[in-house]
């Protein structure tokens, strides 16, 4: 393929990399931890700092998350939609310019290699798609795309760009101060691009918290300016990876590497919605035979939400039991600041996945009890277009 990425340069970097807002985070007393090869802020210091405070602030106001560790890619050229459809199960051909979809990079056996957001950013006659993939998997994803995309398709790694997520019920109000008129143009899963102080900005109304909000791609050179402009507003405070994780867990959203792996199929994971109607009819995506059979016949296990009794949280790896028999495993778990009790995502035998089913968990040798509950744990509050499904 005609890529602008050196295929020799797709291995994991050895030196720890530094994100555009590294100094900005440290100046705000962020506790930095290494994630996906980068020092990342897990939580901030001072008034309003701390995972629970940042979580609650985001649910009530607006949190600003630096997610520049994620991989930002473009795939372009005549036939780009068809080429992507050979690698993921979405109806990319039907994705209109300015529309965003959740999709999955699938392996030959139907296992999930990564989950991603894809936006049609085509202008004129040249098809172009913008993908955001997970930080920890981006190097593998790039290698996979390099290997499988045909020669006439161009893959670009936008590693000179930052990605900020502004999330919460006051995100639109905050965005209006910095990018007037943009929020009004967008419903959930819609995107637009424009110029700001000489920089090419892309804004999608999407996120990973269950709240209304925006994901903003911009040149790394402008990241501090935008972060300062947003955090100068009364509604906005910086929030770290800790709150991002507890927010996405309450929203029932899976985390790659934990709730999803290359051994997980989309049907068991509850991501059947990512397999478009036309693709179900036509197939032609990796693992289609296996996945279509699972859609028809059902799966042995499914991803469920568990509400735990008591206050002790079950963590990833905790066994799920019905009496003495192990019937599943927790893949993410923690205390829900919004609900004030522990919650977990787990894969359990499909026969025991009905809402209201009582199960036990073995958490570090301690037995905890839990009930299967509907996902999300905390209702999504997306700014949907009335009558639209997305």
């Amino acid at each position, binding site marked *: 393929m005609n890529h602008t990425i050196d295929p020799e340069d797709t291995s994991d970097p050895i030196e720890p990399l530094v994100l555009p807002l590294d100094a900005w985070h440290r100046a705000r007393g962020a506790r930095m931890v290494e994630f996906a090869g980068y020092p990342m802020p897990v939580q901030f210091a001072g008034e309003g700092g*701390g*995972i629970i405070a940042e979580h609650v602030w985001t649910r009530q106001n607006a949190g600003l998350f630096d997610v520049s560790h994620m991989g930002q890619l473009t795939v372009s050229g005549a036939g780009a939609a068809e080429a992507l459809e050979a690698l993921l199960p979405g109806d990319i051909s039907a994705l209109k310019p300015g529309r965003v979809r959740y999709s999955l990079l699938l392996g030959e056996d139907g296992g999930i290699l990564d989950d991603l957001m894809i936006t049609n950013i085509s202008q004129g006659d040249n098809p172009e798609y913008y993908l955001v993939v997970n930080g920890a998997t981006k190097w593998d994803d790039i290698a996979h795309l390099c290997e499988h995309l045909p020669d006439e398709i161009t893959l670009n790694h936008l590693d000179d760009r930052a990605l900020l997520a502004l999330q919460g019920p006051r995100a639109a109000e905050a965005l209006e101060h910095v990018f007037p008129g943009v929020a009004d143009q967008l419903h959930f899963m819609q995107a637009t691009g424009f110029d700001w102080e000489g920089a090419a900005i892309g804004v999608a109304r999407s996120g990973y918290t269950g709240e209304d909000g925006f994901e903003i791609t911009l040149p790394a050179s402008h990241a501090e300016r935008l972060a300062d402009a947003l955090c100068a507003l009364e509604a906005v405070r910086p929030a770290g990876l800790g709150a991002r994780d507890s927010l996405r867990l309450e929203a029932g959203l899976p985390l790659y590497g934990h709730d999803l792996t290359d051994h997980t199929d989309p049907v068991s994971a509850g991501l059947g919605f990512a397999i478009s109607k036309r693709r179900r009819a036509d197939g032609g995506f990796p693992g289609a035979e296996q996945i279509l059979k699972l859609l028809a016949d059902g799966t042995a296990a499914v991803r469920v939400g568990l509400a735990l009794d008591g206050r002790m949280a079950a963590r990833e790896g905790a066994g799920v039991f019905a009496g003495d028999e192990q019937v599943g495993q927790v893949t993410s778990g923690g205390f829900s600041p919004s609900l004030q009790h522990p919650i977990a995502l787990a894969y359990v035998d499909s026969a025991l996945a009905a809402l209201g089913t009582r199960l036990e968990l073995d958490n570090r040798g301690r037995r905890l009890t839990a009930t299967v509950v509907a996902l999300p744990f905390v209702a999504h509050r997306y700014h949907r277009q009335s009558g639209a499904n997305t």
Partner: protein
Amino acid sequence: MTRFFTKDHEWIEVAGDSGTVGITDYAQGQLGDITFVELPELSRLVAPGESVAVVDSVKAASDVFSPVSGTISDANGALEGEPELVNSDAETGGWLFRVVLANPEELGGLMDKAAYDAYVAGL
């Protein structure tokens, strides 16, 4: 009364043959928001380095080890309703449990305040 510290960031305040145990302010800061504390049963016999309590934070669960051998004589019931006391008041009101010392000589292997502060400064 004398206060000693462990490398695992517990403190023990000793009065007579009774020690009151908690985690240090440094430890609570590292753990972040504490959401649950599992306290030991009374009369339980414990050994140095034995996991006696669990402090659950938003991020992770952490064991709290007994600094000494002895018998658990009390646990801080206030933490059941207010685990965040360990964040706000780690070295006083956020104490976890009391232990009747079986072998006070074990205290000689622990750090005093100055040694602990130097230890933390080097982390």
